[in-house]
């Protein structure tokens, strides 16, 4: 069964360092997303991406964050100058061409980011 894959599964970094989290969405999906979940809290939307551009972003997704689809398969989230409060599980997700109107959103297993 096709799945969304994420790397790394766990990354530890020092405050102020840059981090790149990588995702391979399900092939033939066209909408890509990043969500995050701080320990013990709700899953929160960060950004959606379609046709090589951001289609929507939350207030959390400030200038510290950026997304990119560098090739035909990868989708990345970059966090510049990490802060302690960026420690969370980051989930990549994808849907087919209709986006959420397709009625399905498939998540990866997540990348746990720990900022020290």
């Amino acid at each position: 069964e096709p799945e969304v894959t994420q790397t790394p599964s766990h990354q530890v970094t020092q405050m102020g360092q840059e981090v790149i989290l990588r995702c391979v969405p399900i092939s033939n999906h066209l909408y890509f997303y990043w969500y995050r979940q701080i320990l013990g809290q709700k899953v929160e939307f960060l950004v959606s991406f379609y046709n090589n551009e951001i289609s929507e972003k939350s207030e959390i997704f400030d200038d510290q964050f950026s997304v990119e689809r560098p090739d035909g398969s990868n989708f990345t989230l970059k966090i510049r100058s990490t802060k302690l409060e960026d420690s969370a599980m980051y989930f990549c997700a994808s849907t087919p061409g209709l986006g959420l109107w397709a009625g399905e959103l498939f998540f990866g297993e997540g990348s746990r980011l720990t900022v020290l």
Partner: protein
Amino acid sequence: EDQVTQSPEALRLQEGESSSLNCSYTVSGLRGLFWYRQDPGKGPEFLFTLYSAGEEKEKERLKATLTKKESFLHITAPKPEDSATYLCAVHLGGAQKLVFGQGTRLTINP
């Protein structure tokens, strides 16, 4: 403000003891209500999407229903492997994002 609230926060059942989880929402322009299962340290696993009041969907021991203000996830004769956190999320009209509730942590004791 759009809100999604799940209750109870935690539920402990004996194997075979049926129950229901609740997801209530106060949103405008609901396009769909999604249910997910999340195991510890894992990503949410898609279960169902419901679109209109009166709709029902089933998968194994789970059945999801939807009204104009809330959704229920009924679990019938649960087994220990059904232990997980169950999340509901709403898709609002015009948006490409889901708004999640805080989840119900379900524990099934053998």
